[in-house]
């Protein structure tokens, strides 16, 4: 199976659709997996629960919404960055506002970047595109094999 390029964890389906749309428009990535909450995301990464049979492979990038039901983005971040096996997966937090009080916390936990979801579609598309280009093409992972 082709490696998951981007794992998008977003509870808001419209935001998810817009994000995927934006990423696709840039023709950067093909393989995007969208999950609706943190619990699903963790199951997916660790191939547990409903993803128990999944072939084990880490995505190239995780886009993580902060505010989600059940397990929040922060909790997911904390868990993945605390685990030696997953801590090198680049994680970009998606947030509605750059005034989000959780942003600092995310950096403390080792987030690689964060992106404010702009209200306007053009801005949004632009932001997500830039993000995809950076992480998919420019950035070289430290432990790349």
């Amino acid at each position, binding site marked *: 199976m082709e490696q998951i390029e981007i794992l998008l964890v977003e509870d808001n389906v419209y935001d998810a659709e*817009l994000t995927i749309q934006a990423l696709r428009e840039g023709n950067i990535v093909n393989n995007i997996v969208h999950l609706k909450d943190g619990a699903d995301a963790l199951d997916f990464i660790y191939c547990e629960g409903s993803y128990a049979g999944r072939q084990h492979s880490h995505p190239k990038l995780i886009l993580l919404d902060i*505010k989600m039901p059940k397990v929040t983005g922060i909790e997911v971040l904390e868990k993945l960055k605390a685990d030696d096996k997953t801590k090198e997966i680049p994680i970009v937090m998606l947030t*509605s506002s750059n*005034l989000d009080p959780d942003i600092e916390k995310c950096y403390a936990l080792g987030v690689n970047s964060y992106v404010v979801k702009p209200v306007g*579609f053009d801005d949004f598309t632009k932001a997500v595109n830039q993000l995809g280009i950076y992480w998919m093409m420019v950035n070289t992972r430290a432990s790349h094999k």
Partner: protein
Amino acid sequence: MQIIRTVTFGFLLVIAVLTTAIVSTYYNTRNVLDANSLIAHTQKVLYSSEEIVAQSTPIATGYRTYLITGDTNYLKPHDPKPINNLYAKVDTLSTYVTSPSQKARIDTLRDMIGHRILYADTAISLIQNQGRQAAVAFVSLNGSKKILDEIRRLVNEIQAEEKGMLAIRQKTEALQQRAYYTVFLGLVVLIFVILIALYLFILNNIKARANAETELRDSRNLLHAIINNTSSNIFIKDLEGRYVLVNSPMAALFGKKPSQIVGLTDYDIVPEHVATKVRDDDKMVAITAQLREVEDDVPMQGEIRSYITAKFPIYDDKGVVKGVCGVTTDITQRKQAEKKLKDALTDVQDLYNHAPCGYHSLNESGIITEINDTELKWLGYTRKEVVNKMRFTDLITTEGKTKFPQLFQQFKELGHIEGVQYEMVRKDGSSFHAMLSATAIFDEQGKFSHSRTTIHDISELKQAEQMRESLNQLLAQQVSQLEEANAELNAFTYSASHDLRAPLRAISSFASLLYRDHNTVLTEDGKRLLDIIRGNAKKMAQLIDDLLIYSRIGRAAVNTAEVEMVGFAESITEELRDAYNNNLKAKFTFSEPHRVHCDKVLVRQVLLNLLGNAVKYSSKNPNPQIHFGWYHVNRENVFYVKDNGAGFDMRYADKLFGVFQRLHSDVEFEGTGVGLAIVARIVQKHGGRVWAEGKPDEGATFYFTIPDN
């Protein structure tokens, strides 16, 4: 007097000795004269006796010659007359001698003369009567010669005795003369001695007197100097009140010389009532002959001056009072000082008694020695009941009594104590809470003398304290409630804005997608409507952002550091230029740099908002000019942003800084109405103020201040 007596005695002695000398000389002279007369007397006796012998001889020779011659003329010696003369001579001789033996011899001599005469008579009568023969026979017997020899022998004896007596006398006389000379010499020497002694004595006295006079002069000069150079007024008056002596300072007081006052009375120099009092005092001193101190108030050169005078009597030689001497000191200043002191004391006493706090003093054993009216009033006692009768422990509760001894001991050692609380018991048994502070007063030996205690009735304070405590609790509750509410509000604001943005994003983005991807099926009006939807969604997002900033500022702590404001503002205009893609027409000017202490992150928002506003509101002016400046007044740094834009109506100036308050419509200028509210909030957090001045179409100036540190 001693001198006079001694000198008199000396002279009397001299006179006595002199008299003695004179008397002795007199007697000596008399002695010498006596001796001379004695010699003369002896000579007379010798002469007289020789005469008798001589006259006795012719008696024999006469009758013999007659016998021979017969001439009767030769009988003349036998005449009665010569015979009587001879007898007279014997009598005279008899008077010359004194001793009985001489007298006896003279008597014998007289007898012998008588015999001779008789013999001669016999011879004569023989001659005349019996003739010559008989007579010659008779005469040849030579009887006459025997008688004459006898006479000669008697006269020789008389003369011998006289001469012997003279010799004895002359010898005695010589002895006396020698004694006289000795005595006289002695007396003369004595006189000399006495006179020399007297001379020396007088000389000494004169010298002593001269010395005494010098001393007297010296002491008189000294006295004069003292009297005239003292600051005191010194005078002597006689019993009639006339000045006999006045010293210069006193005379100067009346603008005169001492000589001009001597002879005057007080009535001549001071007002009558003063003079009368002074005179009475003088009389009293003279009568009682005792020192007297009197105080007088005398009008002097237009002001009343106070004098204290010590008056005492002056005596003459006989010990009789002859006048009054006085030493006067001007005590006006002292009196004024005394009055001031007295007034001050009264003030202090008044302050002490009417102070809004209680005062008392405790002696070493804790007995109250002083207490002020305020404390007495609090306690309900009178001063008599308390002072020197009650102990402090009599005024406090049993609980207080147990802690007092130790505290009092500590206080006496430390010298002070503060904020001790006692429950004090009033006379009626009720009590109140008091707080005491005290300072210890030590005597010169460093021994505790008494306390100076201040006492405050803290009943109200206690009540207030209780009330404050309950209020504090209430406040704490409210604060925590408020904090809770705030936290909730913040959470709400955040989630609201967060959650509000998602649908907005959806509206805006899907509208955009619709516009883009379904362009061909949309009419122009449909496209216009989609634009409206997107624009409003965008504006709402901005509004939410602004509200978030506004709410975040409310919570933010101010972290100040030194910031150079002008350069900072300049850098922000560069940001604005970037945001406007270098399409800014506005021309910026700046004042010189100025440093203040502020929170750079927060102030950045202020500058951004104000400069952004200036750019926005001046955008319709063809030559927009924006100035950022500052000035310093009353410990405030006043910064301002001045533009030549649309301005505003000053009547609505107060609405500028409210949330969602706008003076322009969105059509004129876009805006959320939160920017200036954010500015005001940040400036207020720095302890500063904001205000604005403007005129429609003439521009506006926005001010904010940052206080000095």
